[in-house]
């Protein structure tokens, strides 16, 4: 079960990384096109800044879930660094539970409410006509990913804790 979850996480991570690279590339081309269209074609493009802001929400949210796997988010490891090894694993269990709870409560649960409320108001982006509710889907989608990653990391630490205590009892 845990092995399957680890494989699933690694696969999902690779897909997300690919999407992130694609979105970042698009973002650069989009804004360069905005400058080029204004100076070279003398006809400023009307949709480029809107597309860029739509892209950045997805970069931020999907990227944040990749950052959770890579443990790139900033934290204060000073105090837990002073704990004995087993207590440190316990503190990690708590951290993953809290990360999972936050992603589930705010990004997933709060995000779904945000999406459905925005879809009800039928708000659309002015130039591209994209429904804003669909743009905000970035939150619940990345919420699901972060919950998956947090559960996987939690179970992995739990397994290592069990293996450790078996070793100690021998």
């Amino acid at each position, binding site marked *: 079960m845990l092995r399957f979850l680890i494989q699933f996480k690694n696969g999902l991570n690779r897909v997300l990384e690919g999407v992130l690279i694609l979105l970042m590339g698009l973002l650069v081309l989009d804004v360069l096109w905005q400058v080029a269209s204004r100076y070279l074609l003398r006809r400023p493009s009307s949709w480029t800044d809107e597309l860029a802001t739509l892209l950045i929400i997805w970069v931020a949210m999907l990227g944040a879930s990749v950052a959770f796997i*890579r443990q790139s988010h900033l934290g204060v490891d000073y105090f837990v660094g002073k704990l004995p090894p087993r207590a440190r694993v316990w503190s990690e269990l708590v951290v993953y539970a809290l990360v999972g709870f936050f992603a589930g409560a705010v990004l997933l649960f709060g995000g779904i409410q945000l999406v459905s409320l925005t879809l009800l108001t039928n708000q659309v982006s002015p130039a591209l006509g994209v429904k804003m509710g669909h743009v905000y889907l970035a939150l619940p989608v990345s919420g699901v990913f972060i919950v998956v990653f947090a559960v996987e990391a939690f179970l992995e630490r739990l397994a290592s804790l069990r293996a450790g205590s078996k070793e100690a009892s021998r």
Partner: protein
Amino acid sequence: MNSPMLVLVLLFCGLLALNVPVAVAIGLSTLATAALAMGSFEIAAATIAQRMATGVYSFSLLAIPFFILSGLLMGQGGIARRLTDLATALVGRFPGGLAQVNVLSCMLFGAVSGSAAAAVSSIGGFIVPEMQRQKYNREFSVALTVTGATTGLLIPPSNIMIVYALVSGGAVSITALFLAGIVPGIVVGLLLMLTAAVLCRRHGYGERVVLPWSATWRAFRRAFLSLLLVAIVLGGILSGAFTATEAAAIAVAYSFVLSVVIYREVKPRDLPGILLQAGVTTAVVFFLIATSMAMSWILTLEEIPQAIGAGLTGLTDNPLLLLLLINLLLLAAGTFMDMTPAVLIFTPIFWPVVQKLGMDPVHFGIMLIANLCIGLCTPPVGTCLFVGCGVGKTSIAKVTPATLPFFVAMTVGLLLITYVPGLSLWLPALLGMK
């Protein structure tokens, strides 16, 4: 302090101590406070999700991923090394030759990129081993790089100024901030160089590097195309030819051409990796911005800025003392908060006091940034310090004592910036920005 606020502060500190990611610690303490204040967990969760989404929905914030991306291209593409060669030719002849080169390189790199951590890793990555070879103390070299790199946040372009302009709600223009940061950035840099010179003389570190004029000229020519980037980015923004975001995208295109086509130090197959790294770094910053915007909202809802403003002005009505108090509070906050959330959370908190004092918001922004730069180099949360220790292969406990003399220099710089508004406001006024 009312009870939801007490929950916020205690929960936030507890979560940080537990090594919960800072962005999640901000988000969770905001969620608890909002649920208490609004009396509904559901509404609190939905509102925070909304604040997070709208918090990063901004075209001007887009300059940040682009400056991160161009910083990576410049670090790996030989631009950083050319700037260091130029710095060697210019200041290598002074006492503590390489130490001077270190600070000037950080300042030059700051003028082509928007982040301090990028300067620490790209400049420190090869100058710290170089200083090691010349028998400089390792901790001294790392401490100097870490503090020197923060000048890049005052010298434009600067990502943190874009964040400040965002939270000021349009009261401050990015262009005026960029101009205002130039002189203070140079002042702090010169103070660090002076400190380094004194320390090097006392400990007998380093040799002077005196190059003939022909070599100086050659170094300048080799660095010319890299320096041209400064002219394009700043010139473009200041003349109104393009916005900060567009300038940042042009910086990406320019550093791409320079490092891939002209210097050929970045291979096309390296590009996906660089885009990915830029994407992850961007997401880390934006996730922090998103949750900080939510916390900033709940603080305003609970009327904390007014309470703190009243508290501060109740203590004293002397403007000089008030500014000192604000600086002390910010220094304390800066030690355990990263710069981006600190700017987003503390700007609205101090805004009423600053307005009462009649302080120019541009001047306040520069002071705020100069102050929080010190926090970037202190434990427990100091992004520059972390990166520097990684690059220099040493520990935070060893580097921290070595940073003390440079903190003195930065504090002197901060006091000058605080009490001499002209340092920040002279250049924007000269060029007709307000």
